């Protein structure tokens, strides 16, 4: 990208104007790259010609680290640090894979609590996603309204497992603690309060005309492209693909509950635009609330540590477990040898996969749209770089 790119533009009079492209470096220290992502952007005026993401500023050898643990249990704190805004989901995914490997059946109560936690975490993560997306659009206030409510979720987590962000709560075969006595009541309270904020921010941000004009018809990700790039989560559903692992590959007891898969319909523009992706997240929070309310109402009794193995030493083999995280399909592939240490762990990080599509969908957009597209992909660099 060092040589200058001359660009010919045909004007209506039939003459060609020659303009030169400009390469700007967006990040790793840039307010809207959501971490230390570096984008090399080739611009023609304000129009994006090419985007090249450069990764690795946050790489910390997570997968290699796991091979040097003294037990499978120790992987979980590391897994937490992948997608640090949705640590519960990461644990869940890893545990699903590990339990498949170890062939452990967990009590029903554990499943219920895991579902409640995963959905609370999904809400917390979407709150950040939409909030920071709002900041990218220049609206700062909704972000803080959402953070105010995210704080309540974090308090629930803190009450349950003692940590606010990196929980180490979901263990192989169970949970580190049972939920505290006041948890059920507090969660119900949260569900009621939170609906008000959801409505409010929906009016303030998602249906604001400026916001709609900024996001509708921008960064359109067509159905085929989304599937070809293996996008998942709200990215995929925003493009109109009705696919959700919670329904299509039910991993815990999600099939017991009644909820809908939200799909982008292109209400404000084209299917698969930035607005669709954003509204899918917004509406998914309503669905998560539905699941939580149902799970809370029918929470069974039981011992959450009954199935926790004392010593984890799997038979050699491999297993792939996946969950529908807030960002999409989060999967762990574990290869075990006859040891207490995993032979190899590979994470399929949805943020990384989703990010790969950025070059494709931001060509021809404006610089400001690139920021919108970045925000709508909802990347967490901890997960992209691992």
């Amino acid at each position, binding site marked *: 990208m060092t040589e*200058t790119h001359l660009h010919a533009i045909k004007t*209506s009079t039939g003459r060609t104007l020659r303009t030169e492209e400009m390469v700007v470096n967006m990040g790793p220290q840039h307010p809207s790259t959501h971490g230390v992502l570096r984008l090399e952007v080739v611009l023609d005026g304000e129009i994006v010609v090419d985007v090249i993401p450069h990764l690795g500023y946050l790489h910390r050898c997570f997968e290699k680290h796991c091979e040097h643990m003294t037990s499978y249990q120790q992987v979980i704190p590391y897994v937490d640090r992948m997608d640090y805004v949705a640590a519960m989901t990461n644990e869940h995914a890893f545990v699903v894979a590990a339990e498949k490997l170890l062939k452990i059946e967990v009590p029903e109560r554990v499943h219920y609590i895991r579902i409640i936690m995963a959905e609370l975490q999904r809400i917390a993560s979407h709150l950040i996603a939409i909030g920071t997306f709002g900041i990218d659009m220049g609206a700062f206030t909704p972000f803080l309204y959402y953070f105010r409510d995210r704080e309540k979720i974090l308090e629930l987590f803190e009450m349950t497992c003692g940590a606010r962000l990196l929980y180490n709560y979901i263990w192989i075969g169970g949970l580190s603690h049972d939920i505290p006595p006041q948890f059920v009541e507090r969660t119900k309270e949260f569900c009621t309060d939170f609906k008000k904020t959801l409505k409010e921010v929906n009016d303030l941000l998602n249906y604001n005309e400026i916001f709609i004009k900024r996001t509708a018809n*921008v960064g359109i990700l067509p159905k085929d492209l989304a599937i070809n790039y293996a996008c998942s989560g709200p990215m995929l559903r925003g493009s109109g693909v009705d696919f959700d692992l919670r329904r299509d590959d039910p991993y815990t007891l999600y099939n017991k509950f009644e909820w809908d898969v939200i799909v982008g319909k292109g209400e404000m523009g084209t299917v698969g635009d930035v607005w669709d992706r954003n509204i899918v997240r917004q509406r998914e929070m309503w669905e998560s609330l539905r699941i939580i309310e149902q799970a809370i109402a029918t929470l069974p009794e039981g011992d959450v540590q009954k199935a926790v193995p004392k010593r984890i030493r799997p038979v050699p083999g491999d297993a792939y477990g996946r969950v529908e995280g807030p960002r999409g399909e989060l999967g762990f592939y574990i290869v075990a040898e006859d040891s207490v240490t995993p032979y190899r762990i590979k994470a399929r990080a949805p943020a990384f996969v989703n990010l790969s599509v950025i070059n494709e969908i931001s060509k021809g957009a404006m610089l400001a749209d690139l920021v919108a597209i970045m925000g709508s992909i909802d990347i967490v660099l901890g997960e992209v770089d691992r």
Partner: protein
Amino acid sequence: MNMYEIIFYFFAFITVASASVVVFSRNIIYAAFSLLFTFFGVAGIYVLLNADFLAITQLLIYVGGILVLLLFGVMLTTNTVNIDIKSGSMNVLAAASVVAALAGLLGGVFWTSDWFVSKQMGELPAQTTSKEIGTALITTHVLPFEIASVILLVAIVGAAMMARREGIKSQIPSSK
């Protein structure tokens, strides 16, 4: 020397000094920016001549419009930063004759004009000229005024026409 004279020489100095920077500077950006001071100085002199409307119009049009346009042009053109513009002498003979002719013309105007000289600068009562200019524009000088506006309109339409892009893919489809 009273205060008005000091102010006059101040503006005159600014005008001449910055105009020489425009001419002699090897850095095109410096040349463009010093135009700002030239225009400013000229506007100041207009004020001293009791031509307040002209002074403000000078600022508005030359600084707010033309200079900004010029800067845009310079900044958007590539490699202006690195390349020194040439301000050496060439075609000395032709240029000298043209300059001599021009100087003669200006000198002739200067000497033959019947200058109105007040005893002291600032003696005339301050009064606005906008009313007279406005009246003159739509009575005696209505034809040139209208011709100028038509020409400007044509220029605007032409510029919009030329700047319209075709061929580059835009993500924003026209509304259905």
